[in-house]
């Protein structure tokens, strides 16, 4: 099977997944979030006004009718209007995309740089003190709660040293990006470092590297050109899926650093029972996840023909 048929087949498989997702999210929110109009009226709600506003939003219709209407609007590309802010959900999402993409790319860039470097250093010092130290730090990166790490970074680099702003987006100034990207990327530094080390150690045992060394190539060239390149497939896979994670917004990081991204949009919408925003953002997140996985699969097929053949045999 070629790449195109493979991609088309995978894309078609996504339709029922997304449809099922809208149904699950709609049902969950309808049950869990209660009546958003009543909540918005505060403790002094005029029952007639509540009923009128609910009717205007179509919230008095049976749930299945509301769901049907929602799907109908969705097919026309209309994500609805925010209950709370009265602006189109699509606008709210589009406004936050640049901040989210910026943060995700910066976090993944940092994670890739630091993670691969740490993984390579760890692999070449396999079994020694440095290896153990790097792996311990990587484990810490994976297991440190992002909220706590964020606060520590703020205290150290913003409050004490004053190198970076504490929070906010600023005017797009890179200094605002550093601490949230570090906090968000820390988890992935750990993952990438461990994956790089494992993968590189496997490759380093291969015969062709011994041959390369025997030919008199410098160790750096052996390691980077022959070793790392061949070990890179699982690392790239991890990063591909990881970028999906990061784009989904890392709500905690965005909350600690007051970063105006998509994750925070969802958190705020849930807190405010803003159903159209919750549905719109969740759907987008699902799309990003699914798209990231889809791209990784396609990359696999491109990079390693054996995967494609395996698919054919099934």
């Amino acid at each position, binding site marked *: 099977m070629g790449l195109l048929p493979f991609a088309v087949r995978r894309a078609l498989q996504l339709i029922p997944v997304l449809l099922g997702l809208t149904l699950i999210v709609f049902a969950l929110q309808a049950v*869990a*979030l*209660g*009546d*958003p109009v*009543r*909540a*918005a*009226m*505060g*403790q*002094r*709600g*005029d*029952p007639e*006004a*509540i009923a*009128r*506003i609910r009717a*205007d939003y179509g919230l008095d219709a049976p749930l299945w009718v509301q769901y049907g209407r929602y799907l109908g609007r969705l097919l026309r590309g209309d994500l609805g*209007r925010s209950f*709370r*802010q*009265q*602006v189109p959900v699509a606008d*709210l999402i589009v*406004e*936050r995309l640049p901040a989210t993409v910026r943060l995700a790319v910066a976090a993944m860039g940092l994670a890739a740089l630091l993670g691969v470097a740490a993984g390579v250093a760890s692999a070449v010092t396999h079994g020694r003190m440095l290896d153990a130290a790097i792996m311990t730090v990587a484990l810490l990166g994976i297991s440190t709660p992002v909220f706590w790490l964020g*606060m520590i970074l*703020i*205290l150290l680099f*913003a*409050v004490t040293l*004053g190198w970076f*702003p*504490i*929070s*906010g*987006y600023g005017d797009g100034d890179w200094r605002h990006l550093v601490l949230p990207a570090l906090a968000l990327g820390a988890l992935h530094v750990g993952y990438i470092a461990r994956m790089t080390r494992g993968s590189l150690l496997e490759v380093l045992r291969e015969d062709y590297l011994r041959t390369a060394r025997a030919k008199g190539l410098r160790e750096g060239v052996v390691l980077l050109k022959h070793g790392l390149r061949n070990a890179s497939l699982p690392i790239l896979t991890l990063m591909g899926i990881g970028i999906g994670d990061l784009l989904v917004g890392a709500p905690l990081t965005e*909350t*600690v*650093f*007051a970063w*105006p*991204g998509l994750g*925070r*949009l969802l*958190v*705020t919408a849930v*807190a*405010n*029972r803003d159903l159209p925003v919750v549905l719109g953002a969740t759907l987008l997140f699902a799309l990003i996840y699914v798209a990231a996985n889809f791209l990784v699969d396609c990359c696999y097929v491109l990079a390693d023909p054996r995967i494609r053949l395996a698919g054919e045999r099934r």
Partner: protein
Amino acid sequence: MRRAIGAGWTPAVLAVGLVLGVALPAGGESPRRGGAYQFSLGPSDPPSLDPAHVTDTTSHAVVSELFDGLVEFDPQMRVRPAIAERWEIAADGRTYRFFLRKGVRFQNGREVSAEDFRYSFLRVLDPKTKSERTWILDRLEGATDFLGGKTADVQGIRVRDRYTLELRLGERFPPFLALLAYPAAMVVPREAVEQAGADFSTRPVGTGPFRLTEWRRDDRLVLTANPDYFRGRPHLDRIVFRIIPEDLTRLQEFKAGTLHHSDVPAGLYQSIVADPALRGRLHSQSILGIQAVRLNVEVPPFAGNRKLRQAFNHAVDKEAFARVIMEGRVKPAAGILPPGMPGYSGGLAGYPFDRARAGQLLAEAGFPEGKGLPPLALHYNTSLTNRRLAEFVQAQLAEVGVKVELAALDWPAYLKLVDAGQTQMHRMGWIADYPDPENFLTVLFHSRNIGARGNTSRYRNPEVDALLDRADRTMGEAERVRLYQQAERRIVEDAPWIFLNYYSTDLLVHPAVRNLLEQLSPMDSSPTVSLVQMRLVWLAE
């Protein structure tokens, strides 16, 4: 007609206590022009900058810098002129005639007239607007019919001439003037509303001292001084409202000097008091609010059993609650009207903590040492502080033999249950909508307001109803106070609530800030300080 400007409740209002004070600005300083004042509005953006849709303090804080109404509150919560230069109230107490200032201009350059107020009020009452605050204006004569679609006009709103507006109520209601200070009664220009449609909420055009120049959602709103403001250009060049969801981050921003004021995160009050660098910047004050566990007096075991309800009140140590659970930030409550509210006298004994008396009353109620009482459910809306509150009450009632089971719910689901009267006991706070006892006593205890309108303990007492009805319509202040106090005493005796605490608020203020604290009123809560007029605030550096 008689003049009514400054009619007020000053002595009671001035009784509001400052628990801790910060140094007031040195006398003789003259205001300095310029600078950008930064503070965080809290966790999320204002939902709407359209005055017709403002229901929260976050939106209120921004809208009150962009728009004006006929009147406004001064720091003592007296109603003072804004766009109305003066007003007259007819002897029947139902007709209000407002004389507008000339030369007040919208930010699009057009002069404001009485017709603009008529348009703005009709817009709020028009069902098509879907305003959540129709109750601000629905006492106007004919408003209910207009709301119900029966008439095309509201007879209680009349334009006498270009600068004179007459409002007539269906029946007398002395707090009406205070209602006109709220966003729903602020003036908007018809042409801008019609042009922007639903987007008026994000492209507001008012008469205010500042205009909106930037709004990046979840990040910041920037307001820039309006040089043509009818009361003169503000001292500040800009106000930057930051949106910082995490309270610890807000505190760090304040410490770093990037916020000019901030709130105090829950759980950190004592550490801030102990911190020499922050202690001097902390300002605490009472606000008009009360928190209680409300007992559903329509269901067993509380229905028809006043002694049981009184026993519960005596069984809970409110002093300990205020000190331990609320970190010493609030005062224990003896009654309903909070300090600073007209009618508050401090003279109510309430229900002092007395376990022996609680035991005795329990026995008289038919439940000696709690025997015969099934486990009772105490509902609360999910939050850490509320959970601690519920656990505290549970533990205190357990000491007199009463078993309480706790149930936490998210706010909308909680409200649904509470509105429907499906709880036995539930926690609820109440902050004043306007500084009048009617807003506490009538809204929360009159039988016509049972359920979603405010009376969630479903208290019903015809004598209290009659007292409140009389008080609500009485024009003389002293007589009104007397009637409300009488009603409050009766309600407290009936003990439909376990009265826990009056609220207070804490604010950290940067030393360069001038004329902020002087303007704080007991209806201002941090960090929004929605009633402070930022045009009068200035920065000394």
